[in-house]
């Protein structure tokens, strides 16, 4: 077991190193000059002032140094938790921008993934035992999973948001408000949260339900189920075993889904102008803010790596078959 995790950690470290390096390279290969474009938008008329400012910014971001120096600097500041300063939102540190966006992404994704997991599995498990439920849930589940997310999100924003006017369809909270611990702010936050949450919840729900239903039916037809039934075991016991075994892949699936949380829900945040990580990425790209882009990507890479490591652990903890094999079982 120690050997297994030792090897895993080594692979993760290697991946991390490669990811950081690639991450550093990509924005530098992108066309365009971010500082020029920023200065252009500031529309300075005085050419010498522009020149001076350009020098100033270049210096500050370290772009005038040789590439290898930039690369070492990058690692050095990374290890200190310094991801540079945003160009788009000058002079806010990238770390601050990310930390400001993370709660919104998590607040959207964690509840939608976990709730859809519970509700979906619950429906799926019931569908596996009742013809009536099976005939209604299954087609509904397939429709939900087959719907492209974009459609679903736009449909919700349009119907519940714009036509019915029940919920705001854009933003994280009311434009006139400042984040504060007041009832007005919190209720505005919740009503803005609802539609993006619902879209993510619905789109994941069908998949969980169908997965659970199929897994249970598969387990119920397996040979150990057959043997139990031939020995007259009551349905209750057979179902309990089938349910437990069907849960194992679902738990791993949940862990995998949670691993994607850090990546944010780019599409959701764009459709609903919700200011999480995905929204930051979009801004970074549109403004050629490569510090911000690098920072968010790095944050995501680290998050995905950690999440994957947790998945590996969960996988071993949850399934005795994997555990036994790792300790070198008989066969």
């Amino acid at each position, binding site marked *: 077991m120690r050997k297994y995790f030792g090897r895993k950690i080594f692979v993760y470290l290697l991946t991390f190193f490669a990811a950081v390096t690639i991450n550093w390279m990509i924005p530098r290969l992108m066309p365009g000059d971010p500082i020029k474009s920023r200065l252009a938008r500031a529309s300075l008329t005085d050419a010498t002032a522009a020149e001076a400012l350009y020098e100033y910014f270049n210096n500050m971001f370290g772009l005038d140094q040789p590439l290898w120096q930039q690369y070492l600097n990058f690692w050095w500041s990374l290890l200190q938790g310094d991801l540079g300063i945003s160009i788009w939102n000058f002079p806010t540190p990238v770390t601050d921008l990310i930390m400001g966006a993370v709660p919104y992404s998590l607040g959207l994704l964690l509840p939608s993934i976990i709730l859809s997991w519970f509700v979906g599995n619950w429906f799926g498990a019931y569908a596996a035992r009742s013809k009536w439920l099976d005939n209604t849930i299954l087609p509904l589940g397939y429709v939900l999973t087959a719907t492209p997310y974009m459609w679903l999100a736009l449909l919700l924003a349009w119907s519940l948001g714009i036509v019915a006017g029940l919920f705001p369809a854009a933003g994280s909270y009311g434009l006139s408000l400042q984040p504060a611990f007041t009832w007005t702010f919190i209720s505005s936050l919740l009503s803005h949260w609802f539609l993006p949450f619902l879209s993510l919840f619905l789109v994941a729900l069908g998949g969980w339900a169908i997965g659970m239903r199929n897994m249970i039916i598969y387990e119920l037809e*397996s*040979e*150990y189920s*057959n*043997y*139990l*039934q*031939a*020995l*007259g*075991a*009551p349905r*209750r*016991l057979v179902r309990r*075993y089938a349910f*437990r*075994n069907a849960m*194992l892949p679902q738990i791993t699936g949940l862990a995998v889904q949670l691993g994607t949380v850090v990546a944010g829900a780019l599409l959701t945040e764009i459709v609903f102008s919700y200011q999480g990580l995905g929204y930051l990425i979009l801004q970074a790209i549109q403004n050629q803010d490569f510090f911000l882009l690098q920072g968010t990507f790095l944050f995501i890479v680290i998050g995905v790596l950690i999440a994957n490591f947790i998945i590996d652990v969960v996988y071993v903890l949850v*399934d*005795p*078959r994997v555990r*036994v*094999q790792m300790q070198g*079982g*008989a*066969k």
Partner: protein
Amino acid sequence: MTLEVSDLQVYYRTLRGDVRALDGPTFGLADGEIMGLAGESGSGKSTLSKSLIRLDGRMRYIGGSVTLDGDEVPIWDDQAMNEFRYKRISLIPQYAMSAMNPTRKIGKMIAELLESRGVRFRDTRDELHRRLELVGLQRDVLDRYPLELSGGMKQRTVMVISTLLNPSLLIADEVTSALDVSTQRAVAETLVEFRDRRFVKSMIVVTHDISLVYQIADTIMVMYAGRLAEKASAKTIIEMPKHPYTKMLLDSLPEVGVKYEDKRLSGIPGSPPGLLKPPQGCRFRDRCPLADKQCLEQPPFVEVERDHHVACWKAE
């Protein structure tokens, strides 16, 4: 008689019609009898053995009766059958390797199974330990997951589990076909030992390999295309078979006692008829060298000598 089966008919309902996989066998099983059930693949052996314990979803009971120790066995009623299962009729499945829940420790699974059948695990534990020892297993297999056992160990564990409640009838469907020769022999000997110790009263041992079952069976029953061809003592079947099909089946095998490697199986020319629309009369007709007009009528399964039943017009 432990078991009496009379004119049992079990079909598979399919979209194209009924597959008459079990068409009216009538036979008995004496107390303490180990009966080998032989026949080519597709002759209905599994259908017969499943019918006696649990019809699978596609099987339909059509008619006939089964009695065990004088009680009618309601094989058409899945709920009522639960009373018989395990306690009075049990089985060692063909898939013994994967018969145990992979994510439960074996001991825990047995405890849960027994408790669910209203048997106190605590009262059975000592006997369970004794029987595991008898088949050469340490009692710590109960603390392991099935995955931690070798194939042979799993096979023996399942044999102990299946017979733990001393059923009257044990059905073993092709239990040896996945094993190597020495393990096959050990399994066969264990079955005999279980009978001798009265763990089980009578047994049906299904196999497509007559030479293996000959070593342990008191009687052998041969099936062909959903019907009985012949039943007699093992010795009689091997030495003086009367049904042309039994004779050809034996000819296709190496001499009993001779190893497989020494002689190649020749097989019987032709193949069994489809059971969706089985031919009129004797179902062996197209492959039988003795067939004539009379065989257009179905031959009855009759006792031609004491304890020797045959279904063939030409068997006198």
